[in-house]
């Protein structure tokens, strides 16, 4: 490759990186401003808005809800998704593929439509809304990811080791817990973390199905609509740290590279 075209490609890559990352970097930067607006110039770096955040009791309620919801969603989708992936791995790929596609359908529906559909359903079925309905709803869009990731891992899994365990007299359950699970454990945990980070970040479906409660994104939304201070940046930064942090661990565990 000649020098000029290499410089051009580097320039393009640079513009892309700035475009993708600058919104995130700016949110984090403005969370440390000492002024009352999320804008330049930043007169001094301070923890003013982080202190305001931890002093606000609504923040702790929202954080607790977020942790309970995303934790439960992570565990449930890991168990249910791994079971489904095991089932699919027993089918021929030709027959498994349509089943995977069906499970992915909820990802094709805009979150707004999914949210109002579930709101209508819960409310007409007189199902009490709160954390439990948010957890159930999140499973719809986290399960496809878990199934895809774990199924991909099982596609190049040597099932002969499980057959050996079965030949030696292990029950199917025992063979799963002593042979299969230890081998695919990293992938399953990684998939659970991806589910957690999707759940943590969700605003739209949570907003329609939580009925009055708050998670961190719902809390930020309330702040954006009402009194806009850099405290929204502090909470936003916290959401980014949690979602990107879990994603990083997940990528490392699943060794997913695209």
């Amino acid at each position: 490759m000649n020098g000029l075209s290499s410089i051009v490609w580097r320039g393009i890559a640079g513009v892309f990186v700035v475009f993708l990352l600058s919104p995130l970097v700016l949110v984090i930067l403005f969370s440390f401003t000492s002024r009352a607006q999320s804008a330049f110039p930043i007169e001094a770096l301070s923890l003013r808005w982080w202190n305001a955040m931890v002093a606000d009791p609504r923040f702790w309620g929202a954080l607790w809800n977020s942790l309970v919801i995303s934790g439960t969603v992570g565990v449930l989708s890991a168990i249910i998704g791994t079971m489904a992936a095991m089932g699919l791995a027993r089918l021929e790929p030709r027959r498994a593929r349509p089943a995977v596609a069906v499970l992915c359908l909820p990802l094709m529906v805009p979150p707004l439509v999914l949210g109002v559909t579930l709101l209508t359903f819960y409310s007409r079925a007189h199902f009490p809304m709160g954390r439990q309905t948010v957890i159930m709803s999140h499973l719809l869009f986290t399960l496809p990811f878990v199934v895809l990731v774990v199924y991909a891992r099982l596609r190049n899994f040597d099932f002969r080791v499980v057959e050996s365990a079965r030949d030696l007299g292990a029950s199917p359950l025992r063979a799963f817990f002593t042979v299969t699970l230890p081998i695919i454990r990293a992938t399953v945990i990684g998939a659970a973390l991806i589910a957690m980070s999707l759940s943590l970040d969700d605003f739209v479906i949570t907003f329609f199905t939580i009925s009055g409660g708050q998670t961190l994104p719902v809390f930020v939304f309330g702040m954006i609509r009402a009194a806009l201070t850099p405290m929204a940046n502090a909470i936003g930064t916290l959401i980014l740290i949690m979602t990107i942090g879990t994603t990083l661990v997940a990528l490392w565990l699943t060794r997913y590279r695209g």
Partner: protein
Amino acid sequence: MTALLLAPAMTIFAVLFVVPLAYFFVISFWRKVLFAMQPDFSFANYLQVYDQHSATLVFTLGLAFVVAALTTALGFIYAYLIRFKAGRWGPALLFIALITLFGGYLVKIYSWMTILGIKGVLNTALLALGAIDEPLPWLYYNAGAVVVTLVNFSLPLAILPIYASMRGITDIELEAARDLGAGGWRSFSDIVVPRSHVGTMAGFGLCFLLAGGDYLTPQLVGGKVNMIGVQIAAQFGLIFNWPMGAAMSFVTLGSSSAVALLAIYLFSQWRPR
């Protein structure tokens, strides 16, 4: 055994996806009487969507098309960079796409409010550079701001499937093409484009459907920009007319799927020469 393993996932899919959507579809034929819903079999809601919201719907589909086309084109370039041009920087570029995929839907929209606003980062920067004397009011609260914001958070959704397709292209294929006398453009149009077709179309479809159904972006950075999602959300808020909201949701789902499929079909007929 296989059925048993698949049962929990399929139950969730059926009870929380198929049944609610079917029920929602039934409700779209009901009517709102005072503050209650009344069972009915009437197309009045659909006629009203046609009468009152078809302009908004057409505008939304147009905007979603622009967003999806831009995002897919940019995503293609980025994926091409990772796969063929970036060399040892490829993994870093892929990594950036991956971390921006999962983090901060609402946070990103909020950030664009602080970038494009009248006292925003962009205006401040241009003023400081002396490029402008007055803040530019037109950066914000218009369709352009909505497009920029939507492209920004949809971009990883386009990059990843396109890159996944491009990873399947081997260097051997490209070398074979070169040995047979194909120039750079020829091997690009005859190998790279057709071989990444599946990923490109998946990225386009996903971005189009999500942009067409978004309501927060127009609400927060769009000002008076009216998209169908904003109208749907309003039916479940202040207006409180769920049957109408249901009818609008199904018209949106139907028309956006139709447009996405048509666009994908037309594109599959096209080969750059």
